[in-house]
Each structure stands twice: as C-alpha cells, then as structure tokens.
C-alpha cells in the first residue's frame, strides 16, 4: 500500500521513502521526517485503534508492538521504522477470533470509557512477550506505563493475569498474531 501525508513539505525538506509491515501487511510510505508513527497510523493509514492521549509518552494510549516489543508510537519517528514489523490493536485478532488478551479484557470488564484499552491490550501482549511477570504485583508494576483515568486497574490486572498463560512469550520478531 502507498500513502503520502497531505501536509506540505517546506521547500528543501525531502520526503523519505520507507517500507514496513503493519499487521502482517507490507506498506511503502513517503513521509516527512518529523512525522510520528502515531500520526502515520491514525491520519494516513486510518488505523485509528491506536489512540493519541498525552502525545508525550506519559499515558501509554499509543502503545503498539514493534518487532514484538511494546513502544510508544507518539515518541517514535516513522522515518526510523524502516523495515519494522508493527502490530496495532487491529492486528491482534485472527479473523473473528479475538486474541486471548482481548477476550480476557471483555470477560473481566477491564475498561469503562475504552480510550486507553487498545494501548492497555497491546502493552499487555508486550508484557506477555517479555515473559517477566510472575505475580499480580509484577503485572501491576510492569503495566505502569498505561494510565486508565476511569480507574479500571484492578480489572485490567485480573484480565492480564488470566490471559498470560495463553499468551506464549516470544522474543521479538513476532507480529503478535
């Protein structure tokens, strides 16, 4: 797929051509260097599941998986993602079958308004890939980069605790599928 940002490049600033895979699909993008990955996903590719909260790396609403690792898309320059394999909330399910983490969030009612939820779920899948959380307290600490202003924290923790065994740790390079 091709995509070009609509904003005008000031004279003498070159667009950069790059290739990346998003949710298993190859993309070729022509982008200006100051465009964040978050803005490319939302404004250019219409992948609006990834949310813009603080836009400063403090809230975690923009969390996506880059080569299997959770990152803040708002503090990632798209131009630095050449060759990356990205997974957003749109890429976690297999067809109509939800990812175990998505299932668990529904079962445990782990959200209220839902704005932070895509970031929470991507972060939780990243946490599973890391394979470091052994206890509920570990989950709590290792989810500290995702804020929920509705305060659904205890249900989020419970959902992750239940889903973890069904999420096989993977060491990077995964696309989250």
């Amino acid at each position, binding site marked *: 797929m091709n995509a070009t940002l609509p904003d005008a490049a000031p004279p003498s*600033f070159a667009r950069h051509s790059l290739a990346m895979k998003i949710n298993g699909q190859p993309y070729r993008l022509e982008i200006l*260097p*100051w465009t964040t990955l978050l803005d490319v996903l939302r404004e250019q590719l219409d992948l609006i599941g990834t949310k813009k909260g603080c836009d400063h*790396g403090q809230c975690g609403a923009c969390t996506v998986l880059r080569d299997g690792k*959770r*990152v*803040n898309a708002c*503090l990632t320059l798209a*131009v630095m993602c050449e060759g990356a394999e990205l997974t957003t909330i749109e890429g976690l399910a297999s067809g109509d079958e939800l990812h175990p983490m998505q299932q668990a969030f529904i079962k445990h009612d782990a959200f209220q308004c839902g704005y932070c939820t895509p970031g929470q779920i991507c*972060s939780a899948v990243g946490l599973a890939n890391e394979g470091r959380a052994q206890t509920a307290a570990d989950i709590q600490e290792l989810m500290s980069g995702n804020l929920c202003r509705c305060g659904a924290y205890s249900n989020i923790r419970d959902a992750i605790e239940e889903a973890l065994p069904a999420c096989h740790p993977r060491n990077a390079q995964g696309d989250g599928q």
Partner: protein
Amino acid sequence: MNPFHYSKPASVQDAVHLAGPASRFIAGGTNLLDLMKENLTRPEHLIDITGLPLHDVRETASGGVMIGALVSNADLAWHPLIEQRYPLLSQAILAGASPQLRNMASTGGNLLQRTRCYYFYDASVPCNKREPGSGCPARTGLNRIHAILGASAQCVATHPSDMCVALAALEAVVHVQGRNGARTIEFADFHRLPGDAPERDNQLAEDELILAIELPAAGFAEHSHYLKIRDRASYAFALVSVAAALDITGSIIRQARLVLGGVAHKPWRDGTVESGLVGKAASRETFSAAADALLQNAEPLEHNAFKVTLARRAIIRALSNAAQGGHV
C-alpha cells in the same frame, strides 16, 4: 515539532562528521522528541545513529562488561551478565520510566536526558539552562523537586536518571568518539554541576558520540541496593534515590559506594564519606553517620527541606538493605 533534515549514517566516522551546532544525534528519541514537541529544542538536523554497530553487551578482558551505547534500557536491565553481576544497575534501570520507554531508550541516551525541572520544561518562562542569562524562576518558585546539593545561583535543577546513579556507584567509564578521535571519561567527571554554565549538562563536545559504557569487574553483587523514593509507587522521577554498594568481610566494611539521585545536577557522590565507611562495622550507627556526612552541606530551598530528612533515612535504609544482601 519543527521541520528538520534527517540522515542515517552507516558508520561512527560518518556520524561524528555530520554533527554540528544545529544537529542532534537520535537513538531512542524518548527525551529528544518530547523536548522538540515542547519547542524546547529545535534541531535543524537529526542524525539517526540506530544503524551503528553499538548494540552489544560483552565481557572485557579485565573481567568487566562493555555495554554498547545503543543497547536498550530494558535489554540491559534484563541481560544475564547485568542481572547476575551488577544487580544494582538492573534495579536502578527497572526503577525508571515505563516498560515502553525502557524498550525504546538507549544506554547512551539515558546519560544525556535533560532535567524535568518544571521551568526548564516550560518554553514561556525564563530558564538559565534553556536560555543562558534569562534567570531561574525555580530558585524562588515551586522548588519541591529541586536540588539540595551542588546547586548554583543560576540553576537548581536535578539530573533525572536512575541508571546514572548506579553507573556512578559502579565507577563506569564512558567511551566517546569525536572528529578528533576517541577518549574515555570517568563517570564521576561525565556530568557537570551547574555553576555559571547550567546550559551544559555534561562534558561532551558537540561532535562527540557515546560509543559504550564500560563497567569495571567489581559489581558488588552480594551487597548492593537501589532505593528510589517518589510521589507514587511507580513511573515517576525520584525525589530521592540511593545506590548503595558494600564489600563486607565478617561484619566489617572493606569497600563502600554511596551515590544519591534526585538531589543534584549530577549523581551525588563523596569519596570521603565512602572511605569513612571502610573498616567500620556494617551497623545502623555507621550508616547514620555516613548519611549525616553526605548531607552536611545540603542547602534546601523553600519547598524541598523535606528532601534532607528523606535522603538521610533513605541512605540508612539502602545501606542496611545492601548489608543484608540487597534483596529486601
């Protein structure tokens, strides 16, 4: 964010030759992009160094460990060599930022992050660090999070890193390269006190790039502890932090390292206090005396006098935990 040119050099040589007064190196970008979004820095050119071969953690011939500047904070904290031989460093890294930011942030970049002083971070107010000579509203303003040691009339900012507090305690060495060649900088000399040039956080020249951080063999794995005190349980900068490392035979201290974070413009260390611990019993009385000595020149501001008491208690607890094996 302001418009900028972007390039991605393939060699260290190329990277340092591209560097200039209006350029910045970028790796994880977690602090630099935030500063750019806040209009606090406006580089004309970003030099992406993530393609450089600086991603390894390896043992050195002298029994230490060489950490490539581009190793992520998360990969470093969870590296088997670091977890086993330098648990103080793992603890400090994991006490900082969030899992997402630790996946992105680089080892070299962690050293170069800027202060989170509210006034530095607000482009609409004066700040001597941001605009030399413009003034320091923090000195008489809201200064609860600011320095109690080593500050100057021009600047009362603190260094925000947890990792650097542990690296100071471990006497790491910073390997850098510029256009005129490579050099090494002892960790204690890397960051500066503000003095009358608070705009300079460290000793790096503008064309110099951090290549690696070297840890000496002594990791104090048996008796070390990183204690961080902050306003919430996780994901906040330190009000006070302590890196404590002891070498104990019987109950007698043979070697000691004691560094404070969150209290000064750089990790705060006093060799006299450390040598004062040597030969003493690892007791509360000893630790209490060390805390008093390290804080004797503290100069609190209007809103941060609590940090002196907090630091005193944190030092005693961190040293006690270290003496008991660090896993408290």
